[in-house]
């Protein structure tokens, strides 16, 4: 019996602890319980480490390095050779060019006589880590004793560039464009939504009609028009920023409506009146008192919006309306796969799709988890 009472007491203390937790630890608590969201978060962290921050380290080759192997098939690391000897150290076979006399097309086949062992932390082409730290160590590659050896995990493209490395580099642009354009969208959407909700009247009507116009507009022609508006002579960074702005301009409407709704109910709260009575200006009330209250909602919308932006960039670039080839992004890489010939003879071009797929799925899982977690009091 006494054990039971101590249990009860312990339980009560546990309850007390629960009540006195602050908001963010409650959020973390709830988030941690969501297995799927955690997986999503881990995948995203991995993506950002490998693709966003250190692709130079993780990719075996620089993105513009053109090898002599054009549209070569992937060379998979092997542990067991033709004779059945097992070696713990993986190796790749060399590639032999073979011309098909009937179609006059070039294919590559494994040369089982040549084996190049792979190593971790090999010395490769020099690069600058994060753009500042000079380095030349890469995560893996053909052992430096075999200068002829090549490892193409996912094949090469028409110019002989390693597809795997390019996917990692392309991830940097694609992931960044997702974040950056969502950031711009948030800025436009939250500001306009909050202003529209706070002032009401004519401001509200104008802003809301603009959002309706945007959402009523057929999207593809709008992309075409905006994409065509980007001059072809622009340098790639400028095109990049233009594309993010296009993405943001198209997608701020929904966010603005949601923020407006939240602000509309928020402005009737007494703390707004109180802030006003202490001499706070309208700007201060909107940005310091009303918008923070909408933030947990906005974070969720933003997280769920990022994958959409990545997809949008990819499809725009695939259609040739977004980023253009010297820039490497998942969209421009996918552009390689837009012919029957490419899919028939070099299907490894499509291997960028799983990368996009996993990133999108991970983001969605993360966003769903955040949505549940940021409202920790709901059951």
């Amino acid at each position: 019996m006494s054990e039971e009472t101590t249990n009860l007491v312990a339980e009560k203390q546990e309850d007390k602890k629960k009540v006195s937790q602050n908001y963010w630890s409650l959020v973390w608590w709830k988030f941690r319980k969501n297995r799927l969201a955690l997986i999503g978060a881990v995948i995203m962290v991995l993506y950002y480490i490998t693709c966003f921050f250190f692709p130079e380290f993780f990719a075996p080759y620089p993105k513009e390095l053109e090898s002599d192997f054009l549209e070569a098939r992937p060379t998979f690391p092997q542990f067991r050779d033709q004779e059945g000897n097992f070696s713990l150290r993986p190796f790749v076979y060399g590639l032999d060019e073979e011309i098909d006399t009937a179609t006059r097309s070039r294919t590559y086949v494994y040369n089982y006589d040549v084996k190049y062992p792979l190593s971790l932390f090999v010395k490769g082409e020099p690069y600058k880590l994060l753009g500042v730290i000079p380095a030349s160590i890469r995560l893996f590659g053909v052992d430096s004793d075999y200068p002829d050896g090549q490892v193409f995990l996912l094949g090469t493209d028409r110019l002989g560039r390693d597809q795997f490395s390019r996917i990692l580099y392309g991830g940097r642009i694609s992931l960044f464009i997702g974040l950056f354009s969502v950031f711009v969208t948030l800025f436009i959407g939250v500001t306009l939504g909050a202003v529209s909700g706070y002032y009401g009247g004519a401001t509200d009507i104008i802003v809301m009609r603009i959002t309706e116009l945007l959402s009523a507009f057929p999207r593809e022609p709008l992309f075409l028009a905006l994409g065509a508006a980007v001059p072809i002579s622009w340098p790639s960074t400028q095109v990049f920023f233009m594309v993010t702005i296009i993405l943001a301009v198209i997608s701020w409407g929904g966010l603005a409506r949601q923020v407006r709704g939240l602000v509309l109910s928020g402005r009737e709260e007494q703390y707004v009146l109180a802030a006003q009575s202490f001499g706070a200006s309208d700007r201060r009330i909107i940005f310091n008192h009303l918008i923070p209250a909408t933030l947990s909602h906005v974070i969720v919308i933003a997280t769920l919006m990022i994958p959409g932006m990545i997809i949008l960039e990819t499809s725009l670039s695939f259609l040739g309306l977004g980023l253009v080839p010297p820039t490497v992004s998942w969209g421009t890489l996918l552009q390689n796969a837009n012919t029957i010939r490419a899919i028939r003879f070099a299907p490894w071009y499509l291997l960028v799709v799983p990368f996009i797929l996993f990133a999108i799925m991970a983001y969605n899982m993360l966003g769903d988890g955040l949505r549940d977690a940021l409202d920790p009091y709901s059951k």
Partner: protein
Amino acid sequence: MTKKTRDPLVTVKDLHVEFDVRDGIVHAVDGCSFNIYRGQTLGIIGESGCGKSITAKAIMNMVPKPGKMRGEITFYEKSDEDGGEIVNQIRIDQTDPDGETIRKIRGGHIAMIFQEPMSSLTPVYTAGFHILEAVNLHRFLPAEKIGDQMGKNIQKKRNLSEKEARTIAVDMLQRVGIPNAEKRVDSYPFELSGGQRQRVMIAIALSTYPDLLIADEPTTALDVSIEAQILDLMRELQETQGMAIMFITHNLGVIAEIAAEIVVMYMGKQVERSTTIEIFENPKHPYTKALLGSIPQIGEKKTSLETIEGMVPSPFDLPPGCVFHPRCPDYMPGKCDRVYPQYAQVEEGHWARCFLYDACWPDTPEAQQIKNQEAIAAD
């Protein structure tokens, strides 16, 4: 009573606030005139919806949207030295409601606390942050912190450092009697009880050393023991800081305790005004009498509570003549339902609006005619 000069701080002359809504025009405040003197407490009583809160908001020039304000509200700004001269007269009703002038007055000279402490604090900020915001907005270091006369002006213009701000916040919280202020300064509103939140509100209001504190039913949402504590606190702080209080309530017990002078309002109209003792000892207007009569007395044996007959009329359909006549025990047919009485001094220092007193007959010819007819009929 100590010798307190009747030094006006805010004068309100013939204030009208009208709301033009779909069903007609609501006269929320209809001809209110009173003065608030430095260091004194003015009480405003009346039932719900009689225009008390709107009057308070009008003084801050914070009348909500469709409302229009007429009349004269003058704020007398004094220089900071003790016994300083009046340096500035500001017509509050003529300021731009979002302008710099009124925002300096709000919070800086006139602070306000509200009925609902539960929602008066922005949920995303700590108690300390709220105080800091008010202090920083008005860049007004408390007098103790200011060094010599020379340094004064310079010090007042600068922003607080983080450390100073914290000290001030802790100090203010201590002054309003929050236990464990060093810890509470980092508490979010949801971690505070109702009484503590109201104390924090008072601390915010007092942190800028205002000349006038408008308390809009500050204790209505609190239980009786907390109410007593808050009232004691306000009285105590009034004595130490010498600020005026405009105390709005519908609770006669509270107002008897705290106010020096009382204004009674009914349906947006000011029906009586005098010192607290006069109002309680010698009420002139039948409405005031009825209000006082409806308080149960200890020791009295009654089977039911005394109430005021009838219902509050619809603001869209006010009765002709005196608005109180359908419910008035002293209703005089032919007078009260035909002429609207004038607000006049009926005794030394006692104003009322009722035909029981000859002074209240307006000067218009029709009114005089009715008065003469009545006189003839009486003979």
